[in-house]
């Protein structure tokens, strides 16, 4: 067995079954070839790490309340709880914030952002600071690193939405920010705030627990967590 065949056989052994003769040939090759032994160890390690990843599962209330209603020709089958949850998700994700922000005469009255929800949760602001800007001339990151970062932030926002914890998430423009008013250094600013999330939680501890799940800290950033005060709608 040569090295190329051995490496393919290692994957076959992980993903399927190999017969006794093939295994014996692989074992002989690995005894003789240190490079392929390292290869085998790395592949097994990666395989085990893939197996350790979290299994995406429905949110607990959905699992407990999920029932399948078979199609009777006209009605759309659904999870009873899922339908309500999706409506909530869509409302939070695309409509609630816009309606609350505009406030034109004749609009539907919506609760102020700072109001307590029926389940006792209040809003918290997550200001995403940093990480420090890279030195001038730093080469851009690999495409795969960018794609991975996109996936991680999106997956985290997805998870918060599914749990009904996300109110809004936005990135701030990098350029053009200004300081106005009586500050000593009014004018253009160099802020390290890259974006913000507004979430709902029952306490600072719960909000901190939610925020600590953000990929932002892992990327070297800092999160400033502040409760949004309910001032009664000033």
């Amino acid at each position: 067995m040569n090295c190329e065949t051995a490496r393919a056989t290692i994957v076959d052994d992980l993903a399927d079954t190999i017969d006794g003769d093939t295994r014996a040939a692989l074992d002989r090759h690995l005894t003789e070839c240190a490079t392929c032994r390292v290869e085998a160890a790395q592949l097994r390690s990666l395989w085990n790490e893939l197996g350790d990843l979290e299994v995406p599962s429905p949110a607990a209330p959905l699992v407990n309340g999920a029932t399948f209603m078979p199609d009777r020709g006209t009605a759309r089958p659904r999870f009873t709880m899922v339908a309500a949850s999706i409506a909530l998700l869509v409302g939070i994700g695309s409509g609630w914030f816009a309606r609350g922000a505009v406030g034109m005469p004749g609009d539907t009255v919506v609760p102020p952002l700072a109001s307590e929800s029926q389940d006792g949760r209040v809003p918290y602001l997550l200001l995403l600071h940093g990480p420090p800007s890279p030195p001038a001339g730093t080469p851009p990151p690999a495409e795969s690193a960018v794609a991975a970062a996109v996936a991680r932030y999106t997956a985290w926002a997805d998870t918060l939405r599914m749990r009904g914890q996300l109110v809004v998430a936005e990135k701030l423009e990098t350029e053009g920010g200004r300081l106005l008013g009586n500050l000593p250094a009014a004018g253009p600013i160099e802020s390290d705030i890259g974006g913000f999330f507004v979430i709902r939680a029952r306490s600072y501890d719960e909000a901190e627990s939610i925020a600590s799940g953000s990929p932002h800290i892992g990327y070297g950033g800092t999160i400033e967590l502040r409760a949004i005060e309910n001032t009664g709608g000033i």
Partner: protein
Amino acid sequence: MSNGPDPDTRLMFEVRAGDREALARLFERNHGRVHALCARLTSWADAEDLVQETFLRVQRHAGTFHGKAGFTPWLFRIARNVCNDRGRRIRQTSALEAQWARDQATMRAAGDPESRIDRRSLIEDALAALSPEDREVVVLSRMHDLRYADIAAVLGCSVGAARVRLHRAIGRLREICSDLEGSPDELRNRTRNNR
């Protein structure tokens, strides 16, 4: 000794015969892993909706089930088609999200090497960065323990093609892991050399 069809296959034959309770039991037994598959192929937010669409199609197309390859590959093939039909397999990210992530990745690459993310996050990143075609074969093989023959049945290809696709996907996954592990060091070394 033959053990006969597995419980899900038996239930599916009952569904094909018009038994609605069998469909409910099939749902109870399988909706979790269908959710896991859809979430990996699309996103967690979409998965709930796609699970119900999958079981709707299971009911509608029950007459096409013959049990030759077993229930799981048939079910997963439907789930995969649902994901494809919705056009959500390639995660749609807004320009803002992409720009934001690009900024973060640039900053991270140049930042403190001690702040690198842990290994599990790195594997998650690498899996997410695979192409949808590569990711699905890795997910089916590793996350759902499907053998080559079952993967072939899900993907609608030969067993040999399924094997080649997995080998290729694992190779790409390793390359991406190396990229993610190596880029901060390489950048740090370049920065040092440029001083």
